[in-house]
């Protein structure tokens, strides 16, 4: 038993230092993009714009951080965007009917977590590969949301609730506080708790993890539920920030969230990556949009520029790490 534990846990410890160097290199990329944008646009380097970028990155981070845990177990959650849409529509309805912000927030989080739990059950109990299980879930959720909303938009929420998304606290946007809190919790959970270490172990070698006595299914269930709950949180922030939601808001959220996880250095094969890296990934994606808007890059060229920057970012990062070794 103790030998097996070593097999499962040992690779992660040695990878951790690599994870840290990787994140440092990614931060360097962020710095390069920031310096370049500061030189190109005088509006970039201001407190207002930095807070603006952080607030924009927060929404993507919420979705991507939960997803990071799933990817760390070598799984994938393709249903996050559709989950955000359904959770937002349900939370919106609850607020409209009860007038209660607390009930709205709870229903959004519960819907998100519930969907995540179902994903987890499909992956663990039914042994359906996560890609297929969550892809199927995406369609189920889309169908439910389309039927429920019937082409309508749900809009107009009380000012108290709106504070969560568009308010300020001591000069800082509320979502930025949530970003810092969940970044801290996520990092602590993944790096410093037994459960977090077990997640890395499952991703690195599921067989060894099982043999070493890690309750693999329970951890997987938890990971998918957390991913769902974070989508639920994103839906609340979305609703509070946009003051409205419709059935198709999720479609444009899933791929960027997956991209943020991967740009942040988390491996699709599991066992390697950090929540902080995902934050950096979300930051890079947000900076690209911010920079293109500030520099007024022509709309036709924006997808092209985004693609080139993303590929360059990851390639340069791989190169610099090879050299560093």
């Amino acid at each position, binding site marked *: 038993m103790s030998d097996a534990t070593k097999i499962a846990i040992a690779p992660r410890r040695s990878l951790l230092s690599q994870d840290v160097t990787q994140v440092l290199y990614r931060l360097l990329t962020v710095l390069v993009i920031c310096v370049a944008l500061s030189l190109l*646009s005088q*509006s*970039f380097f*201001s407190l*207002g*714009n930095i807070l*603006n970028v952080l*607030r*924009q990155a927060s*929404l993507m981070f919420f979705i991507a951080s939960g997803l990071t845990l799933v990817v760390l177990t070598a799984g994938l959650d393709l249903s996050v965007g559709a989950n955000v849409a359904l959770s937002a529509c349900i939370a919106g309805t609850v607020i409209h009917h009860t007038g209660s912000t607390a009930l709205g927030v709870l229903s959004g989080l519960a819907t998100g977590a519930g969907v995540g739990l179902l994903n987890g059950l499909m992956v663990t109990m039914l042994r359906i590969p996560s890609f297929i299980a969550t892809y199927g879930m995406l*369609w189920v959720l*889309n*169908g439910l949301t*389309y039927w429920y*909303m*019937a*082409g*309508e*938009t749900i*809009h*107009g929420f009380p000012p108290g609730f709106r504070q969560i998304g*568009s308010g300020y606290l001591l000069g800082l946007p509320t979502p930025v506080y949530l970003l810092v809190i969940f970044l801290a919790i996520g990092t602590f959970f993944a790096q410093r708790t037994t459960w977090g270490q077990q997640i890395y172990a499952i991703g690195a070698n599921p067989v060894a993890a099982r043999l070493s006595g890690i309750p693999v299914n329970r951890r997987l269930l938890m990971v998918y539920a957390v991913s769902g709950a974070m989508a639920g949180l994103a839906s609340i922030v*979305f609703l509070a*920030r*946009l*003051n*409205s939601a*419709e*059935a*198709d*808001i999720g*479609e*444009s*959220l899933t791929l960027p969230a997956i991209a943020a996880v991967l740009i942040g250095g988390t491996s699709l094969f599991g066992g390697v990556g950090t929540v902080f890296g995902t934050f950096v990934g979300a930051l890079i994606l947000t900076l690209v*949009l*911010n920079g*293109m*808007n*500030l520099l*007024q890059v022509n*709309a*036709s060229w*924006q*997808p092209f520029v985004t693609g080139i920057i993303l590929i360059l970012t990851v390639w340069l990062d791989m190169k610099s790490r090879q050299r560093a070794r």
Partner: protein
Amino acid sequence: MKHHHKSICVTLTLLVLGGIATGARADGETIAVFTKNQTNPFFQAVRVGADLAAKSLGAKTLHYIPTKSDSISEQLSQIEDVVVKKPSAIVLDPVDYKAMVPGVEKINDANIPVVNFADHSAGGSFVSFVGGDDYRISLETARFLLKTIGGKGNIVIIEGVKGTLTNAERIRGFKDALAENPDAKLVASQPGNFQRLQALQVMENLMQSNFQIDGVLAANDAMATGVIEALDAANRKAVVIGVNGTKEAVDAIKAGKLLASGDYDGFIQGCVATMIAIRAARNQPVVKEIVLKPAVITKDNYQPFDLPLESRICPTWDDAAKLGTK
């Protein structure tokens, strides 16, 4: 969808039997209505309009909507299915105005009358076309904004999805209105991809580099509301217009947050296109083309648009035939 197909069969069988039994022709036609997705409020308005028009003329509608929004392949296979089932007539908004031409040709080969609405198909033969004119609608709505702010100031355009005809025409309308007002300065034109969140973020970014923005022309209502939220959160003021005339936009106009929305009337399009389809199935005369006159919804005329879809009334055939500019 399977269920729908079955019900078409049943309906058609009953129709034929009913026809033989009573000797009556025409009544109880089935009209297959093709819309592009389940999420855009515009198509919801089209479907309600189509249902009401069919009901008033004693016909039935069957709705075909791709489960994946705006999916070319899915609409094509739905058309293939429908051609086999032979409805009395078809009402079609092609998901892609070029890619759907082979589908239209299949309908033509099967001799089913088909009415085109919203997006003008690049080919195939249609009984009639019913639609709004994106260019004129956007031109008139942008003119209204520019007139309101005295023809001068800093203007931002939030574009839709690049490469779509709708977006190209709307942006052309905006830019032509700007060209008529030399004192109005276009400070930025950036894409929000018809998405609320993206429009909000783009507006937040543009406010960082532009300290004075007087007017915002958004290519649809969802983006216009995103822009309004960005302005509100930053405590900035600018007049905003959108296009589509959605319920949400009408509410925002009522609340004084949105100046105007160009009315791309889905309800009327659904009514009129379905009426024409039924008339074609009954061999009654139709109008070849109805391009709805552009209407700008403002705080002075929003009342009729404030009604829930179900309680709106389709125009009579005589009024409908007069609606168009052509």
